């Protein structure tokens, strides 16, 4: 549920602040979170070229509102929600991709390395799931995130997250012809 502010910048709707956080600097926050957030963008968009730009867009949105977001208990959850929404938006992704390909051509941007065939196949199947299931599966496996935390990132009830995880895992196991592990 990404909203777009006047400037066209994506914001995370309802990313509620918990208690006041540590008010760390944006620079420290960015340095710590950037690799994980790019990874999430890569997994959900499947685009080597635009994953970094999707992540940068989310951090830029956080930077504009850092007075407020920096005081959240988990500003990382806010950025992940923006990325999760941007990365699964086909239209938005294509716009970003077109821009970044032009920048790669003139050498001012770089692309992520290609994944192995097996990994490509796995993430392609994840992206073919319904949007919410794909987001839940990516957060669960990429960041070992517990259900409650995934709920906080996506702004969804815990029960709903469990259901998406259950449905997504069952579909993936079927499509990839793999056995499901117990919980």
């Amino acid at each position, binding site marked *: 549920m990404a909203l777009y502010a006047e400037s066209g910048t994506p914001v995370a709707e309802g990313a509620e602040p918990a208690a006041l956080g540590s008010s760390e600097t944006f620079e420290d926050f960015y340095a710590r979170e950037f690799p994980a957030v790019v990874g999430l963008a890569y997994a959900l968009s499947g685009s080597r070229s635009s994953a970094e730009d999707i992540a940068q867009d989310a951090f830029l949105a956080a930077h504009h509102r850092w007075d407020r977001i920096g005081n959240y208990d988990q500003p990382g959850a806010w950025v992940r929600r923006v990325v999760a929404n941007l990365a699964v938006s086909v239209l938005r992704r294509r716009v970003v991709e077109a821009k970044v390909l032009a920048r790669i051509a003139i050498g001012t941007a770089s692309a992520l390395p290609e994944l192995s065939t097996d990994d490509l196949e796995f993430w392609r199947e994840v992206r073919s799931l319904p949007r919410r299931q794909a987001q839940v599966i990516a957060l669960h496996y990429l960041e070992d995130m517990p259900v409650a935390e995934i709920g906080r990132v996506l702004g969804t009830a815990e029960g709903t997250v469990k259901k998406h995880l259950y449905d997504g895992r*069952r579909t993936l196991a079927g499509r990839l012809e793999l056995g499901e592990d117990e919980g």
Partner: protein
Amino acid sequence: MTLDTRARRAAQGIHRAVAVMEMSTSREPSRLMRFERYRDHKQRNRRLGAVALAAALTIATVVIVRTGALDPGRATVPVAPDGQAEPIAPTGIGTVTLSANGCTLDALDGPLAAGLVALSAVNGTDGVAAFDVARFHPEELTYERFAAHIERERRHAEAGKPVVDGAYGPFTGLGFPKYAGVLIHEEVRRGRSATMTGTVYPGTYAIVCYRTFDGSTELRPFALAGPLELE
């Protein structure tokens, strides 16, 4: 190999790719400088975009005024080659309503076609609700057995039995029945309605309605509505 093993391996692949990108750009400006460069680039583009948009709006206004394109008498409707209007909206198939007493499906009359469909979902309860459009195979799982399965889940939820540790899904150990699968899922806030849209195949369908129990925020199966045949 299990799904978890494969998934964790694929996650490592992503982490490796990001690490390689980080190493390959370490000779370039630092990570933070890359961010600042990106931010400056976006601000410059936004300014250029605003100028271009203003110019385009001016030209469009002149063209509209000169050609009278806003005259309603000149409006035309796009028509397909065979003379039929192009279908651009999903086909409505009915309304499912969840209340404190149960869940009812009011399907539209006549044979309903599979494809891109829309089902209105009304949450008449005082808590959040969810709805699944589930396809099932009547030769393996009758509607009555499907409904009895959901009924057992409801009784477990009402009795306060927790979801079994380690089980995925909002079920108390029974899980989603075999020979049934979810094609569309939608969460609806209390007292609100939503339109569930998705592409479905020909077959037999039922709607699983979920609600919260006893102040918990966990959505659990409450009732089944249907069946519904799509051709």
